[in-house]
C-alpha cells in the first residue's frame, strides 16, 4: 500500500479528466464514465454565491485551481500553482471517517531553471481537508486558501494563499480587480459534442503580492493570478484522451480561456474571450485553433511545449513559449502545468496545462 496507489485510485475513480493515459482510462472506464447516482450538470442553472464557492458533494469531482504569473523586483519571472481537488466515492457527505469524499492538493513553483512540486492527500469528514463557502476557506493539511473578504462581500475577492513543502513554499495575497466570470453558457461548459459538461466559473482578475520560499532564499513577488472553479461528474467522453488548456492574461487587460479536448478526430475546442471589465464572450465551437509548434522530451514523453493559438474571428494569433519546458507535475496523476509567455498580435503571460500525454 502506498500513498501513491491511493492517489491513483483517487484519480482513476473520479478524475477521468486528468487521467494520464488512454489505457488507464479504459481500464477503469466503468468507474470513470458512468454517473452512478451522481448529479449531472444541467444547462440554465444559475450560480448561487457564496454557496457555490463551497463543495458540491453530489458531484463526482471538483476543483479550486489557482495559477499565478509572478515577477520579482529584478524582473525574473516565476509561476505558482495551488490546487485542491475533491473526489467523491459516493454522492454524499458524512462527518467522520465514513465520509466518501477524498481530497488532493497540488502545489508548485516554477522558475526558468526548476520546477518544484508537492502533493497532499486526505480524507474528508474529519477536518484534515475541506472547503467552507463562507467565510471562505479551502485547505488540506497546512496548505490553505483563505478568504479575507468581509461577510456579505464576494468571498473570493480577497484571498490569502499558503503552501509549504520540504523544498519550497509561498505566501501570497490576492485581490480581485474584476468580477467572477462564468465560462461556457452562463457557467455550463460543454466538454464534448456528446454532451459531457461541467459547471465552470473563473476569477481571472487577481492582483498578487507576496513571497516565494525557494532553496536559494525568499523572493518578494507581484503579479497576476487566475482562479478556476469547476465541478462535474463525467467530464470527458469515452474517446477523449486528454486536454491542452490555456489561461491567458493579455497585455490589453483582456483575458482568454481556451481548451482543446483531444480525441481520435479533430478534437473539441472551446474558448471564452473576457473583456477587461469582465464580460465573457463564449466563442462558438471551432472558433479556437491551436497547433503545436515545438515539442520537447519531458519525463520521457514528447510534449508540445510551444503552441500557436489563433482565433480568426478576433484577429488573435499568438505563439506561446514556456518559462520552463520541464514543468512536469510528477504527482500521482502526472501532467504538465507551467507558466507561459506569448507574442504575436498581442503579448502577455498565462498558464498552460496539458494532460493525457
Amino acid at each position: 500500500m502506498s500513498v501513491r496507489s491511493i492517489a491513483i485510485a483517487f484519480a482513476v475513480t473520479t478524475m477521468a479528466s486528468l487521467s494520464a493515459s488512454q489505457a488507464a482510462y479504459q481500464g477503469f472506464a466503468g468507474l470513470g464514465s458512468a454517473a452512478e447516482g451522481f448529479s449531472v450538470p444541467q444547462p440554465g442553472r444559475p450560480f448561487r454565491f457564496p454557496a457555490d464557492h463551497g463543495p458540491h458533494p453530489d458531484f463526482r469531482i471538483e476543483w479550486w485551481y489557482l495559477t499565478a504569473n509572478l515577477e520579482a523586483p529584478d524582473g525574473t519571472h516565476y509561476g505558482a500553482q495551488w490546487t485542491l481537488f475533491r473526489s467523491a466515492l459516493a454522492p454524499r457527505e458524512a462527518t467522520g471517517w465514513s465520509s466518501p469524499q477524498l481530497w488532493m492538493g497540488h502545489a508548485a513553483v516554477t522558475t526558468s531553471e526548476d520546477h518544484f512540486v508537492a502533493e497532499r492527500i486526505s480524507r474528508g469528514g474529519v477536518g484534515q481537508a475541506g472547503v467552507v463557502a463562507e467565510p471562505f476557506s479551502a485547505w488540506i493539511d497546512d496548505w490553505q486558501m483563505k478568504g479575507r473578504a468581509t461577510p456579505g462581500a464576494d468571498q473570493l475577492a480577497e484571498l490569502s494563499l499558503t503552501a509549504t513543502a520540504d523544498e519550497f513554499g509561498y505566501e501570497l495575497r490576492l485581490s480581485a480587480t474584476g468580477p467572477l466570470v462564468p465560462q461556457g453558457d452562463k457557467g455550463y461548459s460543454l466538454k464534448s459534442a456528446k454532451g459531457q459538461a461541467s459547471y465552470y466559473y473563473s476569477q481571472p482578475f487577481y492582483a498578487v503580492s507576496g513571497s516565494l520560499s525557494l532553496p536559494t532564499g525568499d523572493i518578494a513577488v507581484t503579479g497576476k493570478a487566475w482562479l478556476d472553479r469547476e465541478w462535474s461528474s463525467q467530464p470527458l467522453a469515452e474517446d477523449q484522451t486528454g486536454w491542452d488548456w490555456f489561461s491567458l492574461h493579455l497585455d490589453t487587460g483582456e483575458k482568454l480561456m481556451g481548451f482543446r479536448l483531444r480525441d481520435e478526430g479533430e478534437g473539441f475546442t472551446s474558448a471564452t474571450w473576457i473583456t477587461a471589465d469582465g464580460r465573457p464572450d463564449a466563442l462558438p465551437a471551432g472558433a479556437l485553433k491551436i497547433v503545436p509548434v515545438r515539442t520537447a522530451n519531458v519525463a520521457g514523453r514528447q510534449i508540445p511545449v510551444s503552441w500557436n493559438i489563433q482565433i480568426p474571428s478576433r484577429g488573435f494569433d499568438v505563439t506561446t513559449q514556456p518559462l520552463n519546458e520541464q514543468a512536469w507535475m510528477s504527482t500521482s496523476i502526472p501532467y504538465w502545468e507551467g507558466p507561459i509567455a506569448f507574442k504575436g498580435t498581442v503579448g502577455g503571460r498565462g498558464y498552460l496545462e496539458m494532460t493525457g500525454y
Partner: protein
Amino acid sequence: MTMWIAATALLSHWRRRPLQLGALLSGLALATALWSGVQAINAEARASYARAAAVLDQNGLAHLVSPNGRAIPQSAFVWLRRAGWKVSPVLEGEYRFGTTRLRVIGIDPLTMPAETQTVDLGNDEDLLSFITPPGTLVVSPETAEKIRGQTGLALRVSDRMLDGAAFIDIGLAQRLLRRDGELSRIVIAENQRPGLEPLGKLVPTLSVREPNAQTDVEHLTESLHLNLTAFGFLAFAVGLLIVYSTIGLAFEQRRPTFRTLRCLGVSLRRLAVLLLAELALFAVAAGAVGVAIGYLVASLLLPGVAATLEGLYGASVPGTLSLRPEWWVSGFAIALAGTLVSSAQSLMRLMRVPLLAAAQPQAWGRSSEKGRRLQVLAAAALLAFSGALLLWADGLQAGFGALGCLLLGAALLLPAVLSGFLTLMQRMSSRALVTWFWADARQQLPGLSLALMALLLALAANVGVGTMVSSFRLTFVGWLDQRLAAELYVAARNEGEADRLRAWLATKVESVLPISSVDAEIRGQPMQIFGVVDDPTYRKHWPLIVGMPNVWDRVASGEGVLVNEQFWRRERLRIGDRLDLASEWKATVVGVYSDYGNPKGQVMAGINALITHYPHVSRLRYGLRVPPDQVADLRSNLSDEFGLPAENILDQAALKEQSRRIFDRTFLVTGALNIFTLGVAALAMFSSLLTLSEMRLPQLAPVWATGVTRRDLALIELLRTLVLWLATFIAALPLGLALAWVLLAVVNVEAFGWRLPMYIFPYEWVRLGLVALAAAVVSVFIPLRRLAGLAPSELLKVFANER
C-alpha cells in the same frame, strides 16, 4: 609418500574403532544440535518480535501518546496536520469476531508514513474497499481461516500480517470499538519540514514516545531467551567434553602411526594439515547432522515456546519454523569451532613431541598432581567469583554469570572431591581386592573425570531447574487459590448489557466484584490499573506480600493503591511512595501483592477512584461470589436470561485449570532441554567408559592372572562405575539446590520480577536418580560385555608384549 596414503593410514584408525568414531560424531552432532536448536528457536521468536514491531507498532517511528492512558481526541490529529506535521492516526483495541478475539489496528492509509506500510493493502480497488464501508480486514492466513464466515467484512490475506491481529480502516475501528472520534496514538513520520511549531506547544497534553531500539516484548522475553541460550550452551559444553576426550584419546592411540609416518618422511606440517583436514571433515559431517537434528529439536520445541511466549508475555510467535540461512551457517561454524577448540590441546602436543619420542601411549588424560592442584585453584576462584556476583552485582546477566561460574567451578572441583573420597575408602579397606578396587577406581578417575563432570552438570541442572519449577508451581497453585476467590466470572458483551447484568445480579449473589481495568503509563511504563470494590473477599483472600495497617480501607477510600510485586521490585518502591496515576490523581502505595505470570506492572485502586479519573473504563467483567452449590444454577440462569455465550461465563475451576495449563506449558521447554542434556551426559559417560575399557588391559591382566574371573572383573567394573555415578549424583544434589536458589532468588527476580520460596522435592530426586542410573547402566553395558567376552589370549598378550 603421497598425501593420500598418509591420509588413509590416519583414517584407518577410525575404521578399527567405529565406536570411538561414533562417540566423536554423535557428541559433536548432539552438541551442535542442542546449540543450534536453541538458536533457531530464539531466532524465530526474535524475528517475529521484529516483524510484530514493524507491522503493528510502526516500529522505528516516534508516537504521540496520552500520558494518562486516556484516549486522544481525533481533533489533535487534525490540528497537527493543519500545523504542517506529517502525522497519522491509530486506534487499537480488542474486538471479537464470532468466537475469535482479534487485536484490531485502525489506520488511515492515506496519511500512514510510507516507511511503516509493511503490509500490502493491495491494488487501487482493494484500497478503496479498505477505506469505504463495509470495509476490509487485513489478516494473516491463519487468522483468516479462523474468522472466515464470522464477519461480514471482506478479508484480505497478507503473509506479513501477524496472527491474532487485523488492520482495518480507522473509521471502521472507531465504529467497532465504539470509540467515535478517539485515537490511541498518533504516529509521527520521520521527515518533517523545518520551522514547524513544536509538538509540546501544539499538543501540550500529549507526550512523545521515542522509538525504542528494543520493543516491549523483546525486553520482557529477554529472560526466557537467555534461559534457553544458557541451556543450549550447557548442552553444547557437555557435548564438547565428549569431543575433547575422544579426540584426545584418538591422538594418543595414533602416536605410533604418527611416528611411523614422520619417519617415512611426512613433514610435521603436512601431518598437521592432514589431521586438521580430518577434523574439519568430521566437524562438517557431524555439523550437518547436528543442524538437521537441531532443526528437528527446534520444531518439536517451538510450539511449546510459542505457547509460553503467548501465555506469559502475549507475544505472538508462529508455531512453525522457517529455515534461515544464517542459522545453517552458524550451526556449521559452531561445530567447526567446537571441534578445533576441543582438539587444540592434542594438536599442540603433537607439534611439540620429538620425532622419535617413545610411541607408547601414556595413560590418556592422566593429569599430574600439579595439574589437579591448578584445577582446584581455578574451581575455588570460580566459586568465589560466583559468590561475589551474587553478593554485589545486579541484573539478569550477572545472575546467569553467577550460575555459570557456580556450575563450572563445581565441575572442576569434582575430580578432587571424588579423589579424596576414593583415597579415604582405600585407606579404610583392608582386603586386597577391595583395596585394589578403590585404588583402581582412583587410577581410572582422570580418564572418567570429564564424563563425570558432564554428568554432574546435567544432574545438577536437572535438580536445580526441577526444584525451581516445582517450587514455582506449588507457590503458583496456592496463589491461584487465593487469588481466584470468586466462584463465577462473567463478561458482558457491551456496556448496556453490563448495566442490566449488574442490576439483575444485585439480588442473586452474595457480592459482585467488578473487574475493570485501564491501560496507563506510570513512571514511563505501560501499566494496568485495576479497580476493586470494598469487599470481604479481598480482605480475606488477596495475597499481600507487605501492607500498611488498614490497607483495604485505604484502598477503598481512594487515597491508597496496591502495586504488584514485579512493579514494586522494578521501581524499588517503598510503602508510602506516591504514584501519578492520571493527570490529577496521585495515590500512595499502601501494599504489595504477588502477581505471578504477569509481565506488566499493575496497580489496584478503589473502583470509585478509577471511574472518577478514567470515566471511560470498561465495566464488562465481573467476579461473582455465590455459595458453591448455586454456581451451576446461576450459570444456567445467566445464559438463559442474557443469552451469554458459554465462553463469557467461566467458573473458578475452569479458570484455574486454564491458568495451570499455561503454567505447565511454560516450563515444558525447560523439561525437554533437561532431558536432552542428561542424554548428552550419558553419551559422554559411555564414550569415556568405552575408551577406558580399551586401555585398561594392562591394569586388568594382573588381576585376572591372580585368579579373578572375567565375569567377576566385569561385575567389579560395573560396581565401580555405579560407585562413581552415585558419588557424582550425591555431589550434584547440593549443587542443584544451590542452582535452584540462584534461579529463584536472583534470576527469577530479575527476569520476571517476583521472588519465590524454595521447596525441596526429594521424591523428584529419586526419580532423577533412577533415570540417571539407567543411563549409567546403559553406558557401561557395551564395555562390560566386551570385557566379559575378552579372549584370554588378549589378556596374556599384556605380559608377552610390553609394547
